[in-house]
């Protein structure tokens, strides 16, 4: 079991780091999805470990949520992209302190 958890944590870390270091909104977004899927892996692994289905059901719902997030996220990023001709989060800098 632990291997899966470790793997999921690694994936999660990759995703988190990716969000922090990558600049392209789409890539950042994909990293977020990676985090979600890492969580899914952990959920399923724990479900197996505890021998109940909650984790797997959760994974289902997470997929749904992830899908919804994809839709919304792509929509937003596309709009920005079309109005900026660039998907870099660095260019999104009108709002500053």
């Amino acid at each position, binding site marked *: 079991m632990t291997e899966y*958890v470790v793997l*999921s944590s690694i994936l*999660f870390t990759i*995703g*988190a780091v990716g*969000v922090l270091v990558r600049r392209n*909104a789409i890539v*950042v*977004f994909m990293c*977020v999805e990676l*985090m*979600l899927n*890492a*969580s899914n892996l*952990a*959920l399923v*692994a*724990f*479900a197996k*470990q*505890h021998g*109940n289905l*909650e*984790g797997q*059901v*959760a994974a289902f*719902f*997470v997929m749904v*949520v992830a899908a*919804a*997030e994809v839709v*919304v*996220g792509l*929509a*937003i*990023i596309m*709009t*920005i992209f*079309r*109005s*900026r001709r660039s998907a870099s*989060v660095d260019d*999104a800098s*009108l*709002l500053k*302190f």
Partner: protein
Amino acid sequence: MDYIKPTLEYAELSPLFIVFGVAIVGVVVEAFVARQRRHVVQVALASAGVVGALVATVIVGINLDEVGGGAGRGFVGAEGSIVVDGPAVYLWGLVLVAALAGVALFSERRLEAGVPAFAGQAAALPGSEGEREASTAGLAHSEVYPLVMFAVGGMMLFPASGDLLTMFVALEVLSLPLYLLCGLARRRRLLSQEAALKYFLLGAFSSGFFLYGVALVYGYAGSMDLGAIHDSVVAGTGNRVLLLLGIAMLSVGLLFKVGAVPFQAWTPDVYQGAPTAVTAFMSAATKIAAFGALLRLYYVAFGANRWDWQPMLWVVAILTMLLGAVLACVQSDVKRMLAYSAIAHTGFLLTGVLGVRAATDLTDDQVTSLQAVLFYLTTYGIASVGAFAVVTLVRDTNGEAPSFSRWTGLGKRSPVVAGVFAFFLLSMAGIPLTAGFIGKWAVFTVAMSAGAWPVVLVAIAASIISVYFYIRYIRLMFFTDPAPDQVVATVGTPSLFTSVTIGLCALVTLVLGIVPGPVLELCAQVGDFVR
């Protein structure tokens, strides 16, 4: 396979059903009603739905029966995934009130000369031909009403969720529509889109953390049910590392939603970029919902190992208050200022959350932390809705004029609006005879009773600082005369809904400041969370 038929308490969950139902009907309306009539239909539908849900909530709240020897009222429904208890119902009421105000503000069409404050066609490029056509045709996205209803549904589900999965789903259901709403401003579209992007990316990021926290806690407890988690925490079985990491990650998700340091970065940008009506709605409603969930999570699931997370909250609360207050002093944009003050208020609320104590070392007629936080949420929510609503009125040639200099001498030009705004600011500053004062009083009291006096002292320091930037605006509006060549904003004439909203907010703030007794009693009556 042995299979138990699940059951749903349709009657008790009716508020949720009404809200979601109205949202879906709203989508149908979008699909099949002619464009000219959509706006009216949607407004009517949404407000009717909210009011209906409010009525249902009240009925449900009245009929809640006591459990655990009067410790709490309510029950765990929907196969354990939704908890309908006192606090939940109270928060439903709050969210719905905020939603009502939100719908009222959304429906504003008079300030923009007949069109709402939402983009004519979000997909058209800013400054492009398509956009011009859309705005000349008087188009507007009336989808905002279904969206806001979905968000409201999520916000009601969030604090009422009985297991982590429901909580996560609710979190997303409330977030996603907000992301979109933020991007729909008619004016300053690039700002608005950018706000949406930032909100979305950071929000998704934090929800990823939340989810992983869910996974870890599930790994620790072997169940997502908050009650079960509490039991296994008490039992102390399982791998504590998982538990602690899980708590930390869940906290990341929730603290992001409430906009606490160090996850506050999105707040000012989003508050500034989003259409002000949306800002008004979400500044109040999101905080209410998120704090409801925060309280449930910490009190119900992790109440037993308070000592693990309380130190963390101490630090977070202190940082939040100080940073919010200090940065608010240097803002030159009223929406940003309000955003940072919102951060500071988050800190104060967290101070109240810190005040949680075991029921044993609590004499019965004492203020409980839950009560204090609920009351504070009430007062802050109303004041903030009102304040942002006023911001929508102050305009110059190109739409709203949130920049500091524009507000110079507003008190001379339109004393009433300026006075109301000043009143809201005073309430946020916690000056006596306003609701904000009682709220501050309550949270400070519980925190100090719980022995968190250092936090309270910092909180008081923060309030002194925050008084400064609130008063700064009052002084600007009343005692400063604009330079002869200076461009200043004027107050547009709002529609009836908007003005009524503002008026009611002001009235409630005043009344709660003078006779807070009843509401405080209500907050006490709702009792504790039900496991």
